[in-house]
């Protein structure tokens, strides 16, 4: 039943979802670019952001659109604290630094799920009424849900802002410099730890934005991050670790491939398309689409 309308609708949905994947993943790419660390608790950061949105809605009737900056700010603090309390020590490890950072962040992910279950109970929650939730725009028979449209807009804005930030601000330059050579920046008086903590904060704040958007149309429970974790890693790796633009492109590609795969294969296999494209890309370009060699 492949009509033109079905195909266009699928591509449109895929594109919107893809931009959202990019927004979820960009924080991961940023942190990796800064210090070669993959945060295996990234999905749980998203979960915390969704809960934060949910509780702001529940207690203060704050619409996710309004709470998004608050959630991003809260996640900023959270990310910086996680760096200072855990990651700082993980990267300092003299032996097996790679494994230590994988497993310390992974352990953190398990703790976060446990804490979420302890404090928030395992009940499934959702933000029931929001300005955009459930609303949709229809153009010539193609339906574009407003929360996802907003997500796409936020994603594009976030990528634009991030580009400007990294290339045009002092702090952005400090980030870049620290990334290039952490030893040298110490000489010019930049505190490496401070830069890294701010980098983690920024990465977490971005996933906080994504969480606030997601809360408008997704369910929330302690394990919700798991659904997005692998897809975020693949998105970032596909675009090329360390490349913020790569995460953007990777997200769009993942969204489109997922949509197209579901048209030709049974939907239960739609992730296979994403995985196949990832493998194909890295077999040809071992550093992803836009990774530096």
């Amino acid at each position: 039943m492949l009509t033109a309308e079905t195909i266009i609708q699928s591509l449109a949905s895929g594109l919107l979802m893809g931009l959202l994947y990019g927004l979820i993943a960009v924080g991961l790419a940023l942190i990796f670019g800064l210090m070669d660390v993959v945060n295996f608790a990234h999905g749980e950061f998203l979960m915390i952001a969704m809960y934060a949105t949910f509780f702001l809605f529940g207690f203060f009737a704050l619409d996710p659109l309004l709470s998004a900056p608050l959630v991003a700010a809260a996640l900023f603090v959270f990310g910086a604290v996680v760096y200072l309390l855990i990651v700082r020590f993980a990267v300092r490890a003299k032996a097996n630094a790679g494994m230590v950072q994988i497993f310390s962040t992974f352990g953190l992910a398990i703790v976060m799920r446990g804490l979420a279950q302890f404090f928030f109970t395992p009940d499934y929650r959702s933000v029931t009424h929001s300005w955009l939730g459930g609303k949709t725009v229809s153009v010539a028979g193609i339906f574009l849900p407003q929360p996802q449209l907003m997500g796409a807009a936020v994603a594009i804005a976030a990528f634009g802002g991030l580009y400007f930030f990294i290339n045009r601000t002092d702090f952005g330059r400090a980030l870049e410099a620290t990334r290039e050579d952490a030893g040298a920046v110490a000489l010019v008086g930049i505190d490496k730890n401070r830069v890294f903590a701010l980098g983690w904060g920024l990465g977490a704040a971005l996933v906080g934005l994504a969480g606030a958007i997601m809360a408008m149309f997704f369910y929330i429970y302690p394990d919700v991050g798991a659904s997005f974790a692998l897809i975020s890693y693949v998105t970032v790796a596909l675009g090329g670790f360390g490349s913020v633009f790569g995460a953007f492109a990777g997200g769009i590609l993942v969204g489109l491939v997922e949509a197209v795969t579901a048209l030709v294969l049974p939907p239960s296999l739609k992730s296979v398309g994403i995985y196949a494209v990832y493998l194909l890309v890295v077999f040809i370009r071992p550093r992803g689409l836009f990774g530096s060699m």
Partner: protein
Amino acid sequence: MDQNFAKRRRRELLTAAMLVAAAAVVPLLVKDAYYQNIMVLTLMYAALSQSWNILSGYCGQISLGHALYFGLGAYTTALLFTKFGVLPWFGMLGGGVISAVMAMALGYPCFRLRGHYFVIATIVIAETALLLVQNWDWAGAALGITIPMHGDNWLTFQFPRSKLPYFYFALVLAAVAWFVTWWLEDSKWGFWWRAVKDNPEAAESLGVVVFNSKMGAAAVSAFFVAVGGGFYAQFVSYIDPESVMGFQFSLKMALAAVLGGIGTLWGPLLGAAILIPISELTSSHIGGSGRGVDLIVYGSLIVLISLARPQGLVSLFSRKKAPAR
């Protein structure tokens, strides 16, 4: 130096023999099925982790997709037995061989990848396999495979109540995996792997065939993990895709090695001996509350150990640095 080294090697072998002998007595003293079950799992994970350590520890190619080989072993054994009546002993061997071949076939393109690109490729390949099996009707798809049980029988390796045969099989498997590691550590392969791990470019210039040595490590590693998978299928007597190919297996075997000491001879064993009982006991004794406390305890332990002991817990035991070679 050389003599010291030979002496240390002999001492390692002796220690292992004594550990096996001591372990063999334990289930005769601890007769409770629940504790025996934990012991079997601990030994099985020790074997899995030891095999994982060959590729990821010694050779430095970090795989978080070994559940693929575990599942292949389990499915080969279970399918051959239930569909064709092939005894599980042959199934486990067959699964091992298939996995070794598969590991080399996948290694061919994957070993060009470095760092996180390689890690994610291993995860993605294992997930793909999981999805394919989940949609493969002949192999039971999501319904899985129930292995019918008809009383105690060594031929079909089935024992409805007794855990002892499983215990001894797992003990032998762990011992063999350890012994193979011990043996390879001092062979030219072990030398190559360490060279490849430390500096692939330099290894290449020293005449180490980097690619081939990675392929060798992958094959050995996958073989033993698959035998472990076949064992697991017999032990649980029911398998479904999630319960033998899920990410948690890849993770647990890696975690045991990391906690104990990655790339070391004793690390995986030590790691499994600590990790598996803790994870089983916490989920049994505090998991029933439904409040996630077991997750908090388990996760905190992982964070603390990996931060406090980056070399792994095995470093607590080494009084002096291993002699340089």
